[in-house]
């Protein structure tokens, strides 16, 4: 019975299967050959970097993380290392792992579509682009003392002293942070009659919005710093944000 029912289902499905050999394996071999040739050619013409022998007494200026971590290093301008280097990347990893459990939209499963899942794609692509934008800034646009230089500017050690930074008063900072998350959590309830909330339900909604608001907040703090020279929103003896 079981087998027969299974066969019946198969007959209804469009059977578009092809043999893996040679249809897929040929392409894999070709890809492997092309990649090998590509790496060999690049390696033939461009040498891997090797600077002087490590010297703990003489710091590189600027000392840069490898490019894929330069985005996090760039965040050091705007946040203390506990956030830029530890909490932010942890949130990214946890957020990515939670993604399939948060996105309960059944549409767009296994095919490319923007129309059927606009919200998910806009959020993910924003984060993806944000990450690589930070990588670009950190790798290319930061010179000595992590000073900003445009690509056409020459790196020098004589640049104007950066403007003095100041902190927000503590009550204002706490109000700003709490207000930001409160408004952010409530705001979608009034868009399209709260469709997002009804689709996700309370736990998914809280986690999704918490992660998204943290992403927006991270960018927001950058704007506060760049536009208003704000160092910390919340400054306490125990923790600074």
């Amino acid at each position: 019975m079981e087998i027969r029912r299974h066969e019946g289902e198969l007959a209804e499905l469009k059977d578009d299967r092809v043999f893996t050999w040679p249809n897929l394996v040929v392409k894999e071999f070709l890809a492997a050959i092309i990649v090998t040739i590509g790496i060999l050619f690049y390696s033939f013409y461009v040498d891997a970097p090797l600077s002087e022998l490590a010297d703990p007494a003489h710091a590189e200026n600027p000392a840069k993380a490898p490019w894929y971590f330069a985005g996090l290093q760039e965040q050091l301008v705007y946040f203390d290392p506990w956030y830029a280097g530890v909490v932010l990347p942890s949130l990214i990893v946890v957020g990515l792992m939670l993604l399939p459990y948060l996105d309960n939209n059944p549409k767009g499963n296994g095919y490319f579509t923007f129309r059927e899942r606009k919200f998910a794609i806009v959020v993910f692509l924003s984060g993806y682009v944000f990450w690589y934008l930070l990588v670009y800034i950190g790798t290319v646009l930061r010179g000595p003392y992590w000073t900003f230089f445009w690509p056409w500017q020459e790196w020098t050690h004589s640049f104007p002293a950066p403007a003095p930074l100041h902190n927000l008063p503590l009550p204002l900072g706490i109000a700003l942070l709490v207000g930001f998350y409160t408004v952010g959590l409530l705001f979608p309830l009034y868009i399209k009659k709260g469709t997002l909330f009804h689709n996700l339900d309370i736990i998914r909604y809280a986690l999704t919005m918490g992660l998204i608001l943290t992403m927006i907040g991270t960018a927001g703090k950058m704007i506060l710093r760049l536009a208003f020279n704000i160092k910390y929103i919340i400054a306490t003896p125990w923790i600074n944000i």
Partner: protein
Amino acid sequence: MKIPDLKKKLPDLKKKLMDSVNEIWRTVFRHGFKDTPRNRALIIISNVWLHLHPTQVREHGTKIRFTWCMGGITFFVFLFELVTGILLMYYYTPDVNKAYADIADLMYVVPYGRLLRNTHRWGAHAMVITVSIHMLRVFLSGSYKAPRQFNWVIGVLLLLLTFLLSFTGYLLPWDQLGYWAITVGMNMGRATPFLGYEGPFANLLGMTINNDVRFALIGGTTIGAPALLRAYVWHCVAIPLIAAALMMIHFWRIRKDGGISGRL
């Protein structure tokens, strides 16, 4: 033996020779040469490497415009790094007094050493790029949705391990570039909340410079000989083993979760 005799026996001998060759071939490969559906299936299922694949796949799964081929390329680059990495290990000593000289030797003395090191280095960068494009493709095609949720989680861990593999390798030449890059990284590590001695709430767990998470990572209070050895062991043994184990699960689950994703 007379010449006519040999002429008569030659075809016989040729057949015997071919039979022996065939017999040996049959012990290695369990399929014939003929292009038949049966042989196409046997090529896949009788080969330990190819049997990662099912014998048949849905047609769109063979299209580059759907898969972008990035997962497969990432796996291939990982194997490429494995081979070049093992070759580099023959020339490299994870000792602060020798490491830099060994790399310099590779660049200037060892035959093809420069090409070997370059390919390993650029391959590592390529792998970081391809794995992140693979993630983008899987996201945009919604391939993390039911029933493939958990395989996405494994994938995120593999992405993280790719970063860590590349990062641990960065210190090994023991040059200024790697040394200060790792310093930047470890300055972040010591700021870990609760677990790093300069992080918020470090005093709650009694963290100091010689018992916190940074100390555990670099085996000391400064980046020195133990840090190099630890980076080496993580880079060459521990992370590749963990990554290989996760890759086994990743590939196995693609098939267990219904093969390549696509419209039903």
